[in-house]
């Protein structure tokens, strides 16, 4: 986006009193509200929390019913069935987080793959940028929508898991729950933000989702191989979240990873802004 050059000379159009614009913050809020309204109309605000709740509630219920299921299948002798240890409450919750590793990432990437790339393809992004809307406002309003929806969905799902774990296995402390929620939620937001970035760089939404999931997978694998060297990698966040639950204290490493992830989010948004500014439409 370029502004006009200052027009030289006074022989030009007399200044018509320009009607006052609303403040940039108000215009940003208009964009954010549009994002939320769109999520509501497309039922994203409904299905995404529902799927997260389903995944979250399923794991404790499944673990609770596992001995009964195995008994009714009749394939294991009675003596073995009695030896299956009943997991601790915090273990159940940690296993639930493990369920989100694949499904949660996939859902997040799919839910936000069209957010920027769709508007670049349809031309609405370019249209909005010809209005007094900066590329930064355009991207950050979408990012704020992503943050809201992801955290809302994940919190709902994880809270469901917490509740069923409490009912079926026993309580897990609120501190542990909240800490792991924030660490894991940050990881999902990171994946969503990658989708946003790739959506500003690549032509199709599917490619953006694929690239974001690939990045997340590579980051997880590489950082699980080099835990020492990559202690601050966003890919370590899920491990720190479950470590927090199972009693290990991830402490400063987790704080470092969280801080570094925030830096990554800012950099990804800045990258998306720059990409959108240079190529607001796909053609």
């Amino acid at each position, binding site marked *: 986006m370029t502004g006009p050059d200052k027009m030289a000379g006074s022989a030009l159009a007399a200044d018509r009193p*320009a009607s006052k614009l609303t403040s940039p913050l108000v215009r940003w809020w208009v964009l954010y509200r549009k994002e939320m309204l769109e999520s509501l109309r497309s039922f994203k605000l409904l299905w995404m929390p529902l799927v997260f709740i389903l995944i979250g509630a399923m794991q404790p219920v499944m673990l609770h019913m596992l001995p009964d299921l195995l008994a009714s299948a009749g394939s294991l002798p009675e003596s073995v069935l009695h030896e299956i240890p009943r997991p601790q409450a915090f273990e159940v919750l940690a296993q639930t987080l493990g369920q989100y590793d694949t499904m949660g990432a996939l859902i997040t990437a799919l839910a936000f793959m069209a957010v920027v790339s769709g508007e670049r393809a349809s031309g609405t992004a370019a249209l909005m940028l010809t209005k*007094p809307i900066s590329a930064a406002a355009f991207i950050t309003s979408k990012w704020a929508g992503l943050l809201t929806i992801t955290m809302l969905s994940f919190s709902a799902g994880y809270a469901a898991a917490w509740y069923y774990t409490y009912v079926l296995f026993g309580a897990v402390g609120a501190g542990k729950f909240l800490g792991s929620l924030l660490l894991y939620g940050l990881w999902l937001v990171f994946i969503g933000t990658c989708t946003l970035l790739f959506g500003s760089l690549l032509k199709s939404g599917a490619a953006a989702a694929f690239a974001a999931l690939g990045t997340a997978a590579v980051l997880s694998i590489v950082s699980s191989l080099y835990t020492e060297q990559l202690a601050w990698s966003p890919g370590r966040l899920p491990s720190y979240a479950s470590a927090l639950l199972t009693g290990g204290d991830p402490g400063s490493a987790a704080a470092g990873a969280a801080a570094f992830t925030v830096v990554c989010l800012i950099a990804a948004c800045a990258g998306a802004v720059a990409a959108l500014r240079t190529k607001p439409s796909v053609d």
Partner: protein
Amino acid sequence: MELMRVENVTKTFGTTQAVKDISFSIGEGRCVALLGPNGAGKTTTIRMLTGLLKPTSGQIRFAGANEADAFRASIGYLPQTPPLYGWMNGLEFLVHCGRASGMTAKAATTAAKELLVRVGLEQAGKRRVGGYSGGMKQRLGLAQALIHKPRLIVLDEPVSALDPVGRREVLELLRELKRETTVLFSTHVLPDAEELCDDVIIVAAGKVAVQGALPDIRREHQQPVLELQTDGSALAMSWVDRWLAAQAGKSYVVEGTRTADGFRLVVSDVPAAQRDLLQALAEADIAVRRMEFGHTSLEDLFMKAVASQ
């Protein structure tokens, strides 16, 4: 009064020069047509005017608003295919565009309702934009460009993709609009430009071929034309061929083309042409159906400008 001035603007994509050193200005209150065939560089030029593309070199100046936001609030833009949010209804879309352009919720809602009536979408305002027809989308796109009362409206081929009815509707809207504000629109159809605009900028292959006020262009570029229609007999036509072949000796002929039953001459000296030709026709005893002196049309100029690139 000048509203916008484009100075020596060039745009290069990789190795292709889409726009080559163009300069023009847009006077306040004028309706300007950017006329040229497909691929002439109209869309590229318009994208630079709206700030979507940065010129490779050259300058674009806009009077009044210097600051980027104020500038963007002063222009209204309708791209070649109207980009709309299909999930909104017509009213919601207009209000959203108005608010994004810096209007308050109240002002945007009032203006949106007025505009829906004006572009004939009063009934459709409550329906999802995704279900609109092409003509309705174009009219909503136009309303979107107008809602914040911009000083300059830039429309990229506003009627090219429409059927005759939709085309007529949009042309009528533009006719009203140009009385209220400055309009620049691109087209590849000469009659659209002739019908509406005060000024034309004819572009071909990225360059400005001819520009100016329509009456001035007509006056400056029109040349006398002599059209001869014979009875089309073999005798007459062989005379026509011989006469055209010998035109080198006739200094008043600028350009001669054979038609089905005669010829068409662009001439520099009408009396000389008349004298010489009437004499030759009489000598050869050719049956003449029609002989007419007229002027080259804008169409001729357009075709010539396009062909010479």
